[in-house]
């Protein structure tokens, strides 16, 4: 499938690109032969040689009819992107359950370096955020930009380059942590060569996206694309600034960031918080603004709210990072700014959450009957909830209790499970049947099962962490009558065990739901295609594509 849409010349071009990547891999393997860098070089080399072999074997398979391209969408990369996203979801969530279990039963690392908590934890965060979330964002952005612009993607090879190149980045990241390679900057752990590679991939993504929008047959750029553009552009800025580093040598994987101490802390959390904003929020709002109205078959409630929310988020978020550094050695004025803007951030955040929920007004019977739409509805609710919680946690006195505790982890997963994962599942269940030209998902009952597993899992996880976080925070600050601290650190750790076990259970249910989802998607793809007539409507020239459903009401 991957090559059937490529002409012979394009296949040769792809081979050249893969060969260039193979050469880079070879160079790293040689320069880093005394270092773990060499192992990564060898991975890149082997991977790209395998790709070349695959392309060569298909070089002479039948070519597509090029003249039909302008009147057809380019969906093959999207299909692969969805499959990769679900695979990463299983991987990342499995590791999540594993690290959760390690905190309750520490012997689960079996005295093995790569299984220990500190190495697996970033494999979890990278696996779910960048693997699962990132692939879902790339796939849905490719879909949304074509449908809302009624234009084909502006490239044949570049969508594959973006998708596969991005997954190479994720692969280098995760295997690196397991071997012991990390910059230790949260959500920016990969080393310098992986970071440089991501810049190349990301610039290609940006150019591809803009060129596709430039082909649009609609005068206006649809709201969902604003968010995807903000996601692409701002993530590039954040990534480059936060990852500036000097490698020990060109033969070493290890590097030292150019920032240090308090400045590094500020740069890191400016990055970290806005990774939340532009990766975990803006991109997924892009999904929401397309798939939710599509599925509900109702226009977005308010165009004005969309504008307010978009620019509010783009402007305010960038000030808020310093709320991660309350009461630290960061100057007080920066902490105060961070707190202030975090509170103001609630306005645009709730504007989007409200816009989504009000869009469903009049379609509540659908929310009740259709688990796919319910996924997206509950996601919008959790988005509202976790942004409220976030603004609350950003208030200094509140943060004095919550910081360093599981309350933060509870907040993270209210956002990550309740918002990010649920909106993704809802979008994927909307997208899969239309992409593979099926009437509907293989089993509506299994979507329902997934929904309840996900919701119950999220609730168990989040309630366990709220409890443990608040208990922990209170124990740390409780004094006895005589003015000494009432509890040792160990007392607070012992109090955590029941919650850690509960969290593991909640996470396991969530993972189970994702596995059910994978099975359902697989069976849908395997089912026989629906009547061709529905399929024919989804073409760039058909008005159906943009429909009334996704254009703003006003």
């Amino acid at each position, binding site marked *: 499938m991957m090559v059937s849409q490529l002409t012979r010349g394009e296949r040769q071009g792809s081979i050249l690109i893969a060969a260039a990547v193979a050469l880079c891999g070879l160079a790293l393997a040689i320069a880093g032969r005394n270092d773990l860098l060499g192992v990564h070089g060898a991975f890149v080399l082997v991977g790209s040689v395998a790709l070349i072999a695959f392309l060569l074997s298909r070089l002479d398979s039948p070519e597509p009819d090029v003249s039909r391209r302008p009147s057809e969408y380019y969906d093959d990369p999207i299909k692969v992107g969805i499959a990769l996203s679900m695979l990463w979801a299983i991987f990342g969530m499995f590791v999540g359950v594993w690290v959760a279990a390690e905190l309750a039963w520490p012997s689960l690392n079996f005295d093995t*370096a790569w299984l*220990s908590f500190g190495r697996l934890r970033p494999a979890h965060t990278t696996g779910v955020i960048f693997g699962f979330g990132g692939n879902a964002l790339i796939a849905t952005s490719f879909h949304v930009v074509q449908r809302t612009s009624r234009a084909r993607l502006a490239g044949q090879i570049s969508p594959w380059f973006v998708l596969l190149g991005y997954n190479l980045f994720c692969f280098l990241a995760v295997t690196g942590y397991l071997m012991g390679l990390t*910059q230790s900057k949260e959500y920016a752990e990969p080393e310098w060569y992986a970071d440089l590679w991501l810049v190349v991939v990301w610039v290609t993504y940006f150019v591809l996206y*803009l060129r596709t929008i430039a082909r649009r047959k609609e005068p206006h750029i649809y709201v969902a694309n604003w968010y995807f553009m903000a996601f692409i552009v701002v993530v590039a800025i954040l990534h480059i600034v936060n990852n500036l580093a000097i490698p020990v040598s060109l033969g070493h994987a290890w590097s030292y960031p150019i920032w240090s*101490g*308090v400045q590094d802390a500020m740069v890191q959390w*400016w990055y970290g918080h806005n990774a939340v904003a532009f990766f975990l929020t803006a991109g997924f709002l892009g999904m929401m603004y397309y798939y939710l109205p599509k599925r509900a078959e109702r226009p977005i409630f308010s165009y004005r709210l969309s504008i307010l929310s978009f620019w509010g988020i783009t402007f305010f*978020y960038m000030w808020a990072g310093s709320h991660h550094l309350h*009461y630290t050695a960061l100057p007080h004025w920066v902490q105060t700014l961070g707190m202030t803007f975090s509170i103001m951030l609630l306005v645009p955040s709730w504007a989007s959450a409200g816009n989504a929920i009000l869009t469903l007004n009049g379609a509540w019977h659908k929310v009740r009957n259709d688990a796919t739409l319910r996924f997206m509805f509950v996601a919008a609710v959790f988005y509202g909830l976790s942004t409220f919680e976030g603004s609350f946690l950003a208030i200094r006195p509140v943060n004095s209790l919550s910081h360093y505790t599981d309350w933060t982890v509870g907040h993270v997963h209210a956002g990550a499970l309740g918002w990010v994962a649920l909106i993704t599942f809802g979008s994927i269940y909307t997208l899969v049947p239309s992409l593979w030209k099926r009437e509907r998902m293989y089993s509506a009952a299994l979507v329902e099962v997934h929904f309840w597993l996900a919701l119950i899992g999220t609730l168990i996880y989040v309630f366990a962490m709220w409890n443990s976080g608040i208990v922990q925070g209170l124990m740390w600050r409780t004094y006895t009558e005589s003015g000494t601290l009432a509890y040792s650190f160990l007392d607070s750790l012992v109090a955590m065990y029941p919650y850690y076990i509960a969290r593991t259970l909640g996470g396991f249910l969530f993972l189970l739901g994702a596995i059910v989802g994978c099975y359902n998607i697989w069976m849908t793809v395997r089912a026989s295609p629906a009547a061709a007539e529905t399929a024919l409507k989804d073409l760039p020239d058909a008005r159906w594509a943009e429909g009334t459903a996704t254009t703003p009401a006003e």
Partner: protein
Amino acid sequence: MAELFHRKIERTAIGFVLAIIAAASVGGIIEIAPLFTIDETVEEAPDMRPYTPLELAGRNVYMREGCYACHSQMIRTLRDDVDRYGPYSLAVESRYDHPMLWGSKRTGPDLARIGGKYSDIWHVAHLTNPRDVVPQSNMPSYPWLARTSLRTDDLGLHLAAQQLIGVPYTDEMIANAARDALGQALPDSDYAAGVQERYGDEAQISAFDGVTTELTEMDALVAYLQVLGTLTDAAYENTVAPEEAPDAEDLAAGSATASGGR
């Protein structure tokens, strides 16, 4: 009016992207740039020294194993933090930390002032299997550290890279990096004297993991842990009192008793 204006920029992709960049740049510039120019951001501490090569190698092990995921190194300006862990952290204490390891989660206790609190032997036992010394602990065991010899041949390159980004390593320190790493863990050797010559008398010379025949990653990590919080005395000389935890119950408890301090 505003809506009409927006209708316009929605028509141009490049314009829209530029507007995004403009809106998104303001906050970061205003909050980050002044941290480099306002002098008070980082305190003066003339006694502050950079890490020895062995400590730096230990710090890299600390990062590699992801210790920062569970341990903070940032004591907040809150009374209960100070009572539990010692004087609150100052910016200058991490000024040579590329990257900083302040952390964001305390699954285990803060380590900013762990140096000197326990013996080397305790650390070795604890890292090899935490439950041997703290039965209720959920910290992972790191038995491979004592079995893995430390790579020292490239330590000069590590110091040189740090020098390039502003850490005050001298060329002499860079040239002697591998030897100093060995010397710091070999108390009675010729190499040991060089370490104190270059890094000061306070630099701790010790057979950290108890074995002097081989330099291991355990030596490096313990050397690093033992230096945490001792690179400068600035925090102990600082006289600004910590804040009470701002919640009503606590304020009441706090005013009933004189401040608990160290």
